[in-house]
């Protein structure tokens, strides 16, 4: 095992897959230098024909991925900020998502759309979004949201090998997070949740940065309440079975993700749990999400985004215990 940052783990995944399969290439704005360091160093190794810097043209970046995938390549297109996916909404949500289906299964689109999600960097309303629910809502796309360096590397390798369009959100506040990553080759399968911490009193389902928040809170309150933290790792496919099993054990559920609350990931997961395991619930479930507001810049950003304290408050609400130190 080595201790390496999330961003380097992603770089390794890209380099390994590019070395393994000459059909894999990276395309996007400033991917040679790498705006977030995720695609950096690849051009030195694989050259500019496989690490393509494009003009500032999001529909062209997405279209390059779509078209090349249809023609037999495995492109990885980087959108820089997740907010910019909306600019290529037609290419991502309408075309990529539907085309295998709409063409009777005669074409496939093995491609990855990479994008940096999340707030916490005070980048303002148009550079801070976590549009997980938008992607999860759209049949035909898969969605990976890694929370650790290990998962980031293993999921990205699986995403590149997947024969479908995969949206892969890396969280801006996790890029420098260090963690154990094996020397040897591995992948993390899609649709398999990971229990990041076992517990018996309450289930906290969390994605991306919220997993790290939840783990921190679980540790802080460990003497008073036993928190189980589950990371679905991919939201489509979603490992609802593991979540339901955990809720059957704990009887209490909190879902923490950074997308806007309304019609969000928490709403979907809680609904599925209620449909499947209503009788197991000892208390109404709780969502921890971004408030139903655009994400402001500056100092007031934190008032809209979910914080560790929001997870703590939700655990207090579902357990009926006062936990604040």
């Amino acid at each position, binding site marked *: 095992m080595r201790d390496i940052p999330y961003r380097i783990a992603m770089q390794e995944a890209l380099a390994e897959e590019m070395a393994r399969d000459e059909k894999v290439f990276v395309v996007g704005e400033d991917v040679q230098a790498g705006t977030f360091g995720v695609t950096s160093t690849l051009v030195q190794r694989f050259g500019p024909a496989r690490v393509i810097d494009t003009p500032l043209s999001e529909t062209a970046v997405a279209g390059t991925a779509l*078209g090349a995938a*249809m*023609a037999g390549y495995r492109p990885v297109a980087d959108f820089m900020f997740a907010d910019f996916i909306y600019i290529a909404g037609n290419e991502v949500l309408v075309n990529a998502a539907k085309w295998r289906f709409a063409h009777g*299964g005669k074409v496939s689109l093995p491609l990855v759309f990479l994008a940096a999600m999340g707030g916490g960097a005070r980048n303002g309303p148009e550079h801070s979004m976590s549009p997980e629910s938008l992607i999860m809502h759209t049949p035909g796309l898969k969605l990976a949201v890694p929370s650790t360096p290990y998962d980031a590397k293993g999921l990205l390798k699986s995403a590149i090998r997947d024969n479908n369009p995969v949206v892969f959100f890396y969280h801006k506040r996790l890029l420098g997070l260090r963690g154990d990553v094996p020397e040897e080759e591995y992948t993390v399968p899609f649709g398999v949740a990971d229990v990041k911490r076992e517990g018996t009193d309450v289930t906290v389902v969390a994605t991306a940065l919220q997993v790290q928040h939840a783990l921190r809170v679980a540790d802080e309150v460990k003497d008073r309440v036993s928190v189980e933290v589950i990371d679905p790792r991919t939201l489509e496919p979603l490992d609802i079975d593991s979540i339901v099993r955990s809720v059957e054990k704990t009887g209490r559920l909190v879902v923490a993700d950074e997308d806007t609350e309304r019609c969000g990931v928490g709403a979907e997961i809680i609904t599925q749990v209620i449909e499947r395991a209503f009788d197991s619930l000892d208390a109404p479930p709780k969502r921890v999400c971004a408030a139903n507001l655009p994400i402001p810049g500056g100092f007031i950003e934190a008032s809209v985004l979910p914080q560790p304290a929001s997870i703590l408050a939700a655990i207090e609400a579902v357990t009926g215990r006062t936990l604040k130190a």
Partner: protein
Amino acid sequence: MPLSNEQLKTLYANMVRARRFDEKIVQGIADGKTVSFFHSGLGEEAVGVGGCAFLRPDDFVWYHHRGHGIGHIIAKGGSPREFVAEHFGKATGACNGVAGFHFVDPEHGMLGFSGTIGSAFPVTLGWGVAAKMNNRGQAVVCFFGDGASNRGTLHEAMNMASVMKLPIAWVCENNLYAQFMPLRDAFASEDIANLAIPYGMPSQTVDGQDVVAVHEAVQWAVERARAGEGPSLVECKTYRFRAHSEGAPDVAHFELRPPEEVEEWKRRDPILLFRERLLGEEVATASELDGIDAEAAAEADEAERFAMESPPPDASILSELLYAR
């Protein structure tokens, strides 16, 4: 190289075939056989037929939605039977009856289609990236309407294709209208071909009613593409004989298209013009051409019978189609 007599007769036959199949789908609406809407291409057969004539099977074609691409599809080697069956909603259709009016045939370089106008540009850009990476002299021919040229995706894709010197022939079927919108009120320049200038491409403007002129212009662009000289733009001036779609009013804005305009263009029917030319130049005899006409009618009847006898798809296939394994 001038076209041989056989090739000229093929162009004639393909235009007649395109017309018979188009008429089948139009009639199918009245008969309740065509399940979706239809945008007839009567009057515009020379563009698709001339533009796709004598391409390589591995050249990529994005057909135009006029006639739902029947002229392009026939000329590129696609199966018109599957075209009809798809329009009749049958399991034997090109998209297994899932799309209702799209066509796909990867073996003949037709990788798919989109219902959102302007999707053509980013995707065919991606096909161009793939063709360049393949390095086998493949060309991409992307057909689009004058209306599509109003989309911003055109700018992103044409600019990037020129920067990357991709092997793409952009071919505009300018029929002077986008649904009910006359081009003069939608486009700020005289000719669509002027769009080549800012992207540093050469262009040609041709009479879209002259199948040989279209063929030669597109062939020029394709040869440039194969030689690695980058993209070119061809504008074909043409006109649709029927309304925008079956059942829609035949208007410019809210008033009927000027009858003198319609009459003038109908005198320039591409099939009649070409028939006269073949007879005048003694390329074919009247009875030869009559024989071609009769064969085309019989082929369309046979395709209609095939489609009518085919079963509709089973809805159980749908969930299988969404994701590739």
